[in-house]
């Protein structure tokens, strides 16, 4: 079974040379730390920066340079700043190659819910609805089950949707899965996790149509 860092490491393998990548808050943010050093990737943050670098050294924070999680950041050579309309032109216009974000629920049709729990948590969707409605390549990073052990991979989402039929791939603490016309297709198992454990933790249709390899990290 993977921890959050393990999930980030596995997702980092999906990041290819030449990709512009938008990382959501939480596990996705960690992905930046594990991208191969020999490829060129640029990180976009929807509040208006392309070419994000690491966090600043203590004392070098600049209140005017933050990411979408409101964290102080730095920029790399070749970076640019722009307004919110231009930022979403990049996203809506499909110039961003890969979007990685967290989810509370994903359905076997690729629907995603991650912005609202009615009557309980209403923080808002931020840029997530624009990202999922436009991105051609969306990977969800999340735990396979919630805190009380219920599956987050469902036949239908129970929470208000963020987007419909948009998720392509899911990386959880247990598995890597692809959304297909027939449901969640199991691609890889986390180290030490059996297909049965994955099946038990998946409420939606799970497709196992071949020998499932363990992921290599």
């Amino acid at each position, binding site marked *: 079974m993977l921890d959050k860092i393990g999930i980030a490491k596995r997702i980092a393998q999906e990041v290819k040379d030449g990709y512009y990548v938008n990382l959501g808050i939480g596990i996705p943010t960690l992905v930046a730390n594990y991208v191969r050093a020999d490829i060129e990737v640029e990180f976009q943050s929807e509040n208006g920066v392309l070419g994000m670098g690491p966090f600043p050294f203590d004392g070098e924070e600049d209140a005017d340079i933050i990411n*979408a999680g409101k964290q102080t950041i730095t920029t790399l050579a070749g970076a640019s*700043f722009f307004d919110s309309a231009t930022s979403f032109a990049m996203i809506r216009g499909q110039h961003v190659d890969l979007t990685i974000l967290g989810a509370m629920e994903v359905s076997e049709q690729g629907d995603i819910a991650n912005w609202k729990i009615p009557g309980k948590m209403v923080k808002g969707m931020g840029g997530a609805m624009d990202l999922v409605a436009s991105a051609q390549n969306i990977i969800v990073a999340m735990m396979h089950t919630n805190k009380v052990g219920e599956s987050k991979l469902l036949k239908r989402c129970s929470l208000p949707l963020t987007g419909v039929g948009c998720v392509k791939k899911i990386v959880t603490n247990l598995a890597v899965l692809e959304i297909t016309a027939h449901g969640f297709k199991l691609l890889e198992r986390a180290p030490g996790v059996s297909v049965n454990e994955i099946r038990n933790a998946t409420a939606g249709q799970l497709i196992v149509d071949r020998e499932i390899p363990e992921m290599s990290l």
Partner: protein
Amino acid sequence: MIKKTVQSVTDALEGVSNNMTFMLGGFGLCGIPEQAISELVKRDIKGLTCISNNAGVDDFGLGLLLQNKQIKKMVSSYVGENDEFERQMLSGELDVELIPQGTLAERCRAAQAGFPAIYTPAGYGTEVAMGKETREFDGKMYVLEHAFKADFAFVKAWKGDEAGNLIFKGTARNFNPVMCGAAKITVAEVEELVPVGELDPNQIHVPGIFVQRIFQGKNYEKRIEQRTVRIR
């Protein structure tokens, strides 16, 4: 050259009154019109509708107007950092319209650029699209979203000149440029107000035609919401 300079935040806010709709620039606490917000708190006008990506934190930014119960309705994309906001919303005191961030930006730009409405894919199939017109183009579904209508836009820039030309710094740019000219009156506050001719005409982020009033702000706090550093 048409001069837009006013001497103080008091002059800049001439004409604001109860029940108006305001746009306010900024993302989180970054690039927010601090001085305009302070003055609005001081004037104690009520029943406001505020279009702003976020709602500040409890004791800074739009949170100050919320604490003071001056806001009737918020139109935002993310409001997760403000406890008083959540309390007022869940109790029904505050009307809240949550919309996708890109839609928020483009509804501002539509107002600025004279477009009545836009078609965006964001929110299709979700409750955001409920009651809204949807339409297919090239096999993909879009939601019709209308241009905002606002009385004042309050924006904050890094540098500006007396002609109203603006330049922003870093990610403090965010929603500020798209709100300029998107309301009946745009009020810009700047960290540094310079005479005309000092800014390179090639490097203006917002031409002065989109700004009606500009003033030199004082004592900016520029609070950091999530100070995140790495070890040396």
